[in-house]
């Protein structure tokens, strides 16, 4: 029995290693519901300065069955939460008796919002992620409790706002008042952390396309967040993923909502400028 188990383990690992080509069809195109064309591969933005020639959405790195699940809103389990959020959008909440709809109209009227987040907020004099902006509305205009970072409700709403912008190119600002935050994020991206002494760049810039054990490494783009992870069977947010990555380098991780992760989210989003907003996506 023991021998057979070892054989399975080795054979499985060997197969996973060799089967990189069988994984994703890296030339496949993503069209959702037969109509929304998603750019999953495009020229790298100028600020990357040659570090990458092309940028690719994580969709390209997943196997064909995972890719297929994202091509139809019915098949995409992430859309379940988005539908819930659509109902919440129209429901009044908080002391002011207002719903999102009262100020913002229909969710479709919010197209164009997701592609520019995270962005500088004049009133707060800080970079806001989309979730922070939603909480700002909730607290100051609805008189409602803010959502915890990456809480189910927050992710469902972020998923809704993302879904109405699908196909639009990511376009976060890296200059102006946001610049210093952006540079802080960039520095974090290239800083090695943890017992494994790995930076984001080590995996996602220098080793995308390779296998790390049985994971097919992507470029670490966030254009497709929130992502319905098959592993978690629910939507997962960007900063929760950052926390997981930093923890996986065996470092003391920052927390979702921390200034470090806000800066990192801005920087990583900018690395994907040009890719289409894709979320809610399906990932492994």
């Amino acid at each position, binding site marked *: 029995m023991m021998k057979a188990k070892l054989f399975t383990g080795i054979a499985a690992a060997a197969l996973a290693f060799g089967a990189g080509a069988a994984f994703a069809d890296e030339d496949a195109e993503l069209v959702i519901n037969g109509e929304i064309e998603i750019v999953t591969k495009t020229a790298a933005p100028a600020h990357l300065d040659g570090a990458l020639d092309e940028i690719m959405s994580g969709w390209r790195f997943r196997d064909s069955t995972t890719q297929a699940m994202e091509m139809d809103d*019915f098949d995409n*389990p992430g859309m*379940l939460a988005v*539908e819930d959020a659509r109902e919440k959008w129209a429901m009044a909440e908080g002391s002011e008796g207002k719903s999102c709809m009262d100020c913002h109209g229909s969710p479709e009227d919010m197209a164009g919002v997701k592609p520019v987040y995270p962005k500088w907020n004049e009133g707060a004099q800080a970079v806001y992620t989309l979730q922070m902006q939603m909480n700002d509305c909730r607290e100051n205009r609805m008189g409602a409790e803010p959502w915890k970072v990456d809480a189910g409700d927050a992710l469902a709403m972020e998923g809704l706002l993302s879904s109405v912008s699908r196909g639009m190119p990511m376009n976060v600002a890296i200059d102006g008042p946001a610049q210093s935050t952006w540079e802080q994020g960039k520095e974090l991206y290239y800083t090695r952390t943890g017992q494994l002494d790995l930076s984001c760049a080590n995996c996602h810039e220098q080793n995308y396309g390779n296998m790390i054990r049985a994971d097919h490494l992507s470029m670490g783009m966030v254009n497709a967040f929130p992502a319905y992870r098959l592993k978690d*069977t629910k939507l997962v947010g960007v900063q929760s993923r950052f926390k997981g990555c930093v923890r996986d380098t065996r470092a003391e991780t920052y927390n979702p909502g921390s200034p470090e992760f806000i800066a990192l989210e801005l920087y990583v989003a900018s690395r994907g400028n040009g890719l289409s907003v894709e979320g809610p996506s399906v990932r492994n």
Partner: protein
Amino acid sequence: MASGVKPRVKSPKTASAGEVVTLKTLISHPMESGQRKDSDGNVIPRSIINRFTCELNGNMVVDVTLEPAISTNPYFEFEAKVDATGEFKFTWYDDDGDVYEDIQAIEVA
């Protein structure tokens, strides 16, 4: 009481007599397998959708017995032969006794 359980169905609105159509169904449900333990080490009891049926004009299309190995948010795709104008009835049965239903009309062109 399972909260937030929502059934969804994708079915055609029209078909010709005798046509075979594809039906897709999805229901949001955690499908707690009974294998997991909570932080105190106690087994989280099983709580799943245990049966799904689809009928067309009272005739059975498919009757599925689900076990905990069906993934969260159970998904089924199958085919039905449309005989006459009428309706599809989809029913999901929860371990906790709840029954969820969705009805979709179908018209024979």
